[in-house]
């Protein structure tokens, strides 16, 4: 039993959590990828920026959370999302729109986005320094639920629950939005064929703006929740941008459900890869014949190779399904 709880804690919950983080980042990436058709590298920094906005808000209104009984940063997150959404639109105005107007190829957009990413990194460090910070006001407390199950406890924390819930809501809402709403369909139309979209009366500027608003808001949510769960550092999201991209792509570019599938796939492959299976075997010790020895360590790969596993699985999935789990879009 203990062992099973251990498994739940270390594989299932951990995988779900990190998978949710990736998924929440990946929905934004996949949206921009699907509609504007380029890989938006500063997304990680947009997440960080969103979390910093939340931090600033937290300084301004430290008491809000205590009043509601939730972490202040979470309560203030909608405002942070709005601010970051505007920031995203501003970035587009300044950097991407001129490029789009001159009709550049997607790869040039990618390079521009790399430039923007570097600038954002510089600015974040300039204004926020390089240290780590907490997204908790003094009055907040990080609730940790330990659900006793006999021996070991099942551990889950408040921000993790919030993270998980937000991810599900965000992904489902986005999918509904894209497939059901008029604006959502217009967004897909623009990505399919911008000229024809204009001819149908769709304003590209409007669509692009909406895309950035959503992407910015999602990024802020992802960044804030991640920072609540871990810590806030200027390079936090920059370091997870790779798995986020992996999740977006393996899920299928432009597919919100793909993002969640990809995120969980990457998340679980990370936790499963290094999980020590002998933990689960140990209770069976009495029932096994003598000559079988249970090694102390029985994992797919040693922890130092952990980073390769998601990529390995990724490649395997792509060979099996060349455009991702959810049949993603193919850029030409």
């Amino acid at each position, binding site marked *: 039993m203990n062992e099973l709880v251990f498994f739940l804690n270390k594989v299932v919950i951990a995988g779900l959590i990190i998978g949710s983080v990736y998924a929440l980042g990946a929905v934004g990436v996949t949206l921009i990828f699907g509609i504007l058709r380029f890989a938006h590298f500063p997304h990680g920094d947009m997440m960080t920026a969103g979390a910093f906005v939340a931090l600033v808000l937290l300084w301004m209104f430290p008491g809000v959370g205590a009043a509601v009984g939730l972490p202040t940063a979470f309560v203030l997150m909608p405002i942070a999302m709005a601010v970051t959404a505007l920031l995203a639109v501003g970035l587009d105005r300044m950097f991407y729109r001129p490029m789009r107007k001159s009709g550049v190829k997607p790869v040039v957009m990618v390079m521009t986005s790399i430039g923007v990413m570097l600038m954002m990194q510089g600015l974040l460090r300039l204004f926020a320094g390089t240290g780590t910070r907490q997204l908790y006001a003094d009055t907040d407390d990080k609730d940790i639920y330990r659900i006793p199950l006999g021996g070991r406890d099942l551990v889950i924390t408040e921000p993790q629950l919030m993270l998980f819930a937000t991810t599900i809501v965000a992904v489902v809402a986005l999918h509904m939005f894209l497939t059901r709403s008029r604006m959502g369909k217009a967004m897909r*139309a623009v990505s*399919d064929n911008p000229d024809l979209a204009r001819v149908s009366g769709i304003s590209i500027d409007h669509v692009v703006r909406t895309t950035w608003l959503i992407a910015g808001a999602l990024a802020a949510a992802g960044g804030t929740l991640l920072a609540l769960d871990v810590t806030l550092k200027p390079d936090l999201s920059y370091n997870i941008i790779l798995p986020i991209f992996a999740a977006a792509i393996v899920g299928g570019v432009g597919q919100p459900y793909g993002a969640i599938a990809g995120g969980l796939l990457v998340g679980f492959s990370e936790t499963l890869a290094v999980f020590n299976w002998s933990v689960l075997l140990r209770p069976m010790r009495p029932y096994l014949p003598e000559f079988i020895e249970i090694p102390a360590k029985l994992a797919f790969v040693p922890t130092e190779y952990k980073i390769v596993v998601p990529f390995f699985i990724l490649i395997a999935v792509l060979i099996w399904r060349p455009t991702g789990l959810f049949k993603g*879009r193919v850029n030409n």
Partner: protein
Amino acid sequence: MPLLEMTNIHGGYGGANILNGVSIAIEANQIGVIVGPNGAGKSTTLKALFGLLTVSEGSIVFDGKTVTNMAPEKLVLQGLSYVPQEFNVFPTMSVEENLEMGAYVRRDSFRHLIDQVYDYFPPLKDKRRQPAGELSGGQRQMVAIGRALMTEPRLLLLDEPTAGLSPRYMGEIFDRIIAVNKAGVGILMVEQNARQALALAHRGFVLAGGQNRFTGTGAELLADPEVAKSFLGGGADHA
């Protein structure tokens, strides 16, 4: 007063001008047909009218209002609708979504129009959930035309609407065009099936090298031996 009046249009895609003085005018309930050799600038003329390229000289007046270089999304609101020659569907969206996008600017209910399109083109009804990119060439063409009909425009621009359609649907399209026109919609189309098109045109325009070469009623152009020979595939054996 003409519904549409393009006077002496010049313009191009950034390099040398493609259009060197094109003039086109049609009345509110007329059908206008543009014919000419490949690369004459027919499609470019429609694009210029629809704000997809910059007009450097000349003026476009629609219904008394100057609309030169107006953005396409605004022109749609003015009551224009356009079927491009190429790339005229949203490939990853379903047939029905393509039609819905045609009605994007409408805030009222347009369900009946979708059903009407399915009536015109029964094959589409079976394929309503299929992505338009997976359709056959002719089926795509049907979607493209259906999409343009969704706004119930006052002026319909069609760039080779019958290309790729079987004779049966070609006939169907021409019938539809006549019917729509009878209901008071102006039509301006480019056609390579020029004889059939000119036969039902009130006004015909022959373009070559980005300029008007002949202008007249449809019947006049059909009767002109010079036009027939150089632009309509010539001789008596086809008449």
